[in-house]
């Protein structure tokens, strides 16, 4: 389908247009900021972007960018370019996409790669590949890198010293960003930013809760595409305003029991990443009556912040994230809870070969949910942005078998 044609299709949600504008403004601003020689930082996802906004540093996200490259069908070429330079094809395709885009200086915006960073900020609590990827970027651009390291538990509570370690580094990060931006930190401004970030996250989680409504008032594609401000603009007033409107809109639909997808027969739990170059997979399931009503991908980016203790509060938001501190036993329990709370009939697992961290354990989790609740699951394997090994038939076969089981049970 041509872009022109799709642009003409009337979107279901009023907020859809606003999202487009937020994204557009953001990438346009990134080019302007660079031209004005204002500082630009590249961040990994789940990095404390609030520090950047509080210090007027423009944050860019190569991961979010990778999903856009994939949607525009550029990722295969970018990944291949990175492989030609010696990076293994087994590495995370977000990273390969990023390297390839840099080497070719190509991308979906104005035909160029992302504006170059003046500083780099990485976390490693979501996965270790992020730190390794950012080390490569630091060598390539020869700019300073700060890694916000985390001591993390697994299947256990986060301890006070683990929070302290992260919070101490947030204070160091403030000094790092001050030094490399020339801007001065102001605690009141920081608290204001944290307030916006917390509010956006709260509203987004509220939308998530509204998906318990039968039928679901919001579709998975609406959820996944609407994550952009949560990840990229966390701490900006515009982001919070957007989620207020989004939440109000979905709330009204939920009250009126307007379904996001007609013919909701089977309610599905989705684990974990979307297939960014093929969001039509959701449509495929929906045609069979399968609607994704819960996922943990979006929730991984949320979390409340105790603003009265800004550094510790922010640290807790990032470190005490159940998705990132759980192994098979706790994830199974978490999924079982979601299955019950969201009246889920079946679970779809996207085994993402780019994300060993998130995909490892899926076989056991699937079995655990089935053993304890009798809810069936299906696992298909592919890559989240690199379509080179994608097999539409295999994926659909897997989904079809799940639907056969669900059909037989109705």
């Amino acid at each position, binding site marked *: 389908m041509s872009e022109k044609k799709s642009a003409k299709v009337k979107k279901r949600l009023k907020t859809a247009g606003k999202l487009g504008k937020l994204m557009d403004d953001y990438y346009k601003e990134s080019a302007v900021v660079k031209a004005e020689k204002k500082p630009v930082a590249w961040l990994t996802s789940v990095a404390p972007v609030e520090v950047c906004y509080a210090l007027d540093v423009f944050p860019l996200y190569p991961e979010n960018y990778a999903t856009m490259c994939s949607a525009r069908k550029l990722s295969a070429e970018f990944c291949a370019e990175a492989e030609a*330079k*010696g*990076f*293994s094809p*087994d*590495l*995370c395709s977000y*990273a390969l996409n990023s390297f390839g885009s840099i080497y070719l200086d190509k991308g979906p915006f104005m035909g160029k790669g992302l504006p170059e960073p003046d500083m780099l900020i990485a976390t*490693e609590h979501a*996965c*270790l*590949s992020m*730190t*390794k*990827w950012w*080390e*490569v970027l630091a*060598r390539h651009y020869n700019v300073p890198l700060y*890694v916000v*390291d*985390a*001591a*993390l*538990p*697994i*299947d*256990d509570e986060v*301890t006070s*010293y*683990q929070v*302290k*370690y992260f919070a*101490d*580094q947030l204070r160091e990060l403030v000094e790092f960003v001050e030094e490399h931006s020339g801007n001065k930190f102001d605690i009141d401004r920081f608290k204001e930013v944290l307030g916006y970030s917390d509010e956006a996250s709260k509203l987004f989680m509220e939308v998530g809760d509204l998906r318990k409504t039968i039928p679901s008032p919001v579709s998975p594609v609406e959820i996944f595409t609407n994550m952009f401000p949560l990840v990229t603009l966390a701490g900006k007033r515009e982001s919070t305003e957007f989620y207020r409107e989004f939440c109000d809109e979905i709330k009204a639909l939920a009250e009126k029991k307007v379904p996001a997808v007609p013919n909701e027969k089977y309610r599905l739990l989705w684990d974990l990443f979307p297939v960014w170059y093929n969001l039509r997979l959701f449509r495929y399931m929906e045609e069979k009556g399968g609607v994704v009503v819960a996922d943990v991908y979006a929730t991984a980016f949320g979390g409340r912040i105790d603003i009265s203790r800004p550094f510790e509060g922010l640290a807790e938001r990032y470190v005490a994230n159940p998705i990132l501190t*759980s*192994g*098979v*036993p*706790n*994830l*199974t329990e978490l999924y079982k809870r979601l299955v019950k709370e969201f009246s889920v009939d079946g679970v779809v697992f996207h*085994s993402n*070969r780019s994300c*060993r*961290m998130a*995909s*490892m*354990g*899926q*076989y*056991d989790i699937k079995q*655990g949910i089935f053993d304890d609740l009798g809810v069936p699951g299906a696992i298909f*394997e592919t890559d989240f942005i690199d379509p080179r090994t994608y097999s539409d038939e295999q994926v659909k076969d897997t989904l079809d078998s799940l639907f056969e089981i669900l059909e037989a049970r109705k």
Partner: protein
Amino acid sequence: MIADFQEKYSNRHQIAGQWKKDGKKVFGYFCGYVPEELISAAGIIPVRVLGSLDTVSLADAHLQTFICAFARSCLDQGLKGVYDYLDGIVISKTCDITRKMLGIWAKNINIPFTAFIGAPSKRTESARDCLTEEFRDLRSKLEEFTGKKIDDDSINRSIEIYNKSRQLLNELYEMKKADNPPLSGSEFYQVVKAGFVTPKEEYNEMLSALKAKLASSKPSGDGKIRLMVSGSTFEDVNVLKMIEDVGGNVVADDLCIGRRYFRDLTQPASDPIRALADRYQMKITCPCKHPSDERLYRLIEDVKEYRVQGVISIVQKYCDTHLFEYPYMRDMLQKNDIPFLYLETEDRMGEEGQFKTRVQAFLEMMG
């Protein structure tokens, strides 16, 4: 002599089974970042969990194809009951796979005790403070498990024994600087591997005896090409034997089952837990830690010190942290005019034939 070491490793499961019959407790640990000293001070024998050359049959139902052969083989052994003698496992946060292994083991293999050390990656003061607290927690958990206090004196004694062990391994390693090293690369790694599964007092006696014997031996000239092997872990020591068969000798390494395990000693301090935290946080880095450049700088230094003529990198397929560093390492070696061969393995070196051809070609090129 080497045969004694070899036996310790190949019979390790039977030996551990005997310990159990004698009423001893045995824990498994997953990589060189677990403070064995503490486990040992609790009166428990720590053994390193490693894979096997057996065909994997049970782990495939739990792990995707894109998980490394090392994790797969270890889990497979666990599922087959090979590690049933373990009373506990301790895992430290290094790679994402190791971290996630804990839950899969906990769910599928009956192990009374599990502990996870949420180790930081950086080498700052605050990272060491944090690891100190992690180690204190481990100490409490071990005390709770055994019902016995672990006093500072017993930790200090344990540190001393482990230091002695590392010291002896370093001395043996340094013998490889000689024109004709008294131990070949493959022999040396038989010696190291025995240490992962043998109580250190006993192991130290074996090492001392070996050292004395080697001091008086007169190795004959071999004229082999001096090589370094870099990578993480591999089960098949035969790959080193194969390198020797075609005219190379491994005289230095940058391996997680090699020098990275024993290079650094614990510096005594008034608080033994702090001393251990400093040792484990500051030891030569694995690529899972940040920043990890130091590993490569040291590698270049070692190449000079051990007069290495070429470096062979043996990397586990799907090992992200090593794979991310490969192009940088390649460029760094190139800049220093050090010949470099990169081999990717899925363990079970079924690729041996192909490996052999490539190593041969590499050695001929250096001729």
